[in-house]
């Protein structure tokens, strides 16, 4: 009896040239200047960051460019205890939704320089940028967010953005 073939390996590699588009390109170029650029929906006035160029609620181009703060509020978070590839921090660490001041939707990032048991909703945080020589048009230009010495945001101030 020949041995059964239990598996075969057929490696797949596909390469892509991604075109970010107008709005995302503005966001990425902003990161290379340590600026976080959002896009305003012309119908609702809401600021989306990052934006793919369309208002997700109204399907119209987000034409207005808005610089938002690199400070914000944690709206929700979790504590990650398993390692994953490509992360800038070691577990356990805090993964959080951060509502940047001036934005209407939170963005996801990691929080460091913070004992994980201290993470909480409403906590004020600020972006920590990578060293100048590593800055580029990528979200990796923000190394992580760190807590700042500001009183917690009032729940009412972010309850619409959960």
């Amino acid at each position: 009896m020949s041995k059964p073939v239990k598996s075969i390996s057929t490696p797949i590699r596909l390469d892509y040239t991604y075109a970010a588009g107008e709005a995302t390109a503005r966001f990425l170029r902003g990161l290379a200047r340590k600026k976080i650029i959002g896009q305003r929906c012309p119908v609702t006035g809401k600021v989306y960051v990052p934006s793919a160029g369309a208002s997700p609620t109204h399907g119209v181009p987000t034409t207005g460019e808005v610089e938002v703060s690199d400070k914000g509020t944690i709206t929700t978070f979790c504590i990650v205890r398993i390692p994953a590839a490509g992360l800038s921090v070691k577990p356990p660490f805090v993964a959080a939704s951060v509502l940047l001041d001036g934005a209407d939707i939170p963005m996801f990032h990691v929080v460091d320089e913070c004992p994980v048991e201290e993470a909480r909703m409403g906590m004020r945080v600020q972006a920590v940028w990578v060293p100048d020589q590593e800055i580029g048009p990528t979200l990796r230009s923000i190394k992580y967010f760190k807590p700042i010495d500001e009183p917690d945001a009032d729940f009412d101030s972010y309850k619409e953005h959960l």
Partner: protein
Amino acid sequence: MRDVAVVSFAQSPSRRQVLERNEVEILMPVVREAVERSGIEKKEIGFICSGSSDYVAGVPFSFVMSLDAVGAWPPVCESHLEMDAAWALYEAWVKIQVGEQDSALIYGSGKSSMCNISEVLSRQLDPYYMGPLWPDAMSLAALQARLLLETGRFSERDLAEVVVRSRRNAKQNPCAQLAGDLDLDELLAEPMIASPLRKHDCAPISDGAAAVMLAAGDLARSVCERPAWIAGIDHRIEAHDLGVRDLTQSVSTALAAEKAGLWRAPVEIAELCAPFSHQELILREAMRLGEEVKVNPSGGALCANPVMAAGLIRIGEAAERIRSGAAGRAVAHATSGPCLQQNLVCVLEAR
């Protein structure tokens, strides 16, 4: 059966590479145009269905981002197919047939410039025997073309004639990527890239999008002066293994054509999705289209081939000619899979 009609159509110009816009940004104006032309308010649209491919986009769940082009608020009834949007139109047609909805928006988009599309298409082959060999789409089509020529039914000159006519027709199509007057003998003097296919026998690599609005019965009549009624629509698939099929015929197209009622009355126009010149010849035979039928007045996929939208564009182009009065009855065709594996036939008519 409920009466369902195409009431509007919009498409982006097809370009070799749209660097300045992502898929959502290409789709947005197309979707808006189709909805505005339909006369149906966006909030009244019953169902939204799209076709696109994560493998082409290189992004998981890319269709979720594409939905931003519609603006899904208040929440919408939506579905997506990892296929040409012609099949999304079929799903929407079924949804309207069962009486759940009276209207539907269908859109499809593809940016083939972002990937090596010929390699990406090889990933739809079976993963054990053919996939690991990475046969690109052009090589597989060339195997089919060789078999077809060996039957003696067609010559290389017939292939080139398809190209000459397609490019000439495309001169009237502002969204076409390739158009112009070509010389038959000059084409035949060009080198082969995968014999017996030459570069012009293969559809171009395209970035583009298209959208169609469907409406049922009285709604269609109230918003559209001359709706393009779907007289019949059907799709059929053949075996996955290329070796068990007769590649020189398209039995799935013939069966879909029969089920769609193509032969109940003559058609004046046929929009066929043939990404390779020889495939148009196979399709014309399968659908029994005579010399009197004007094939691909738009130029067809050989002149603009945004994958995942090219089939829907055939339906849209045929419907536009009904709505404008240029034709009374037309047939549109879409294809999926290697070497015309799966085929959809849609018969449209004025009433």
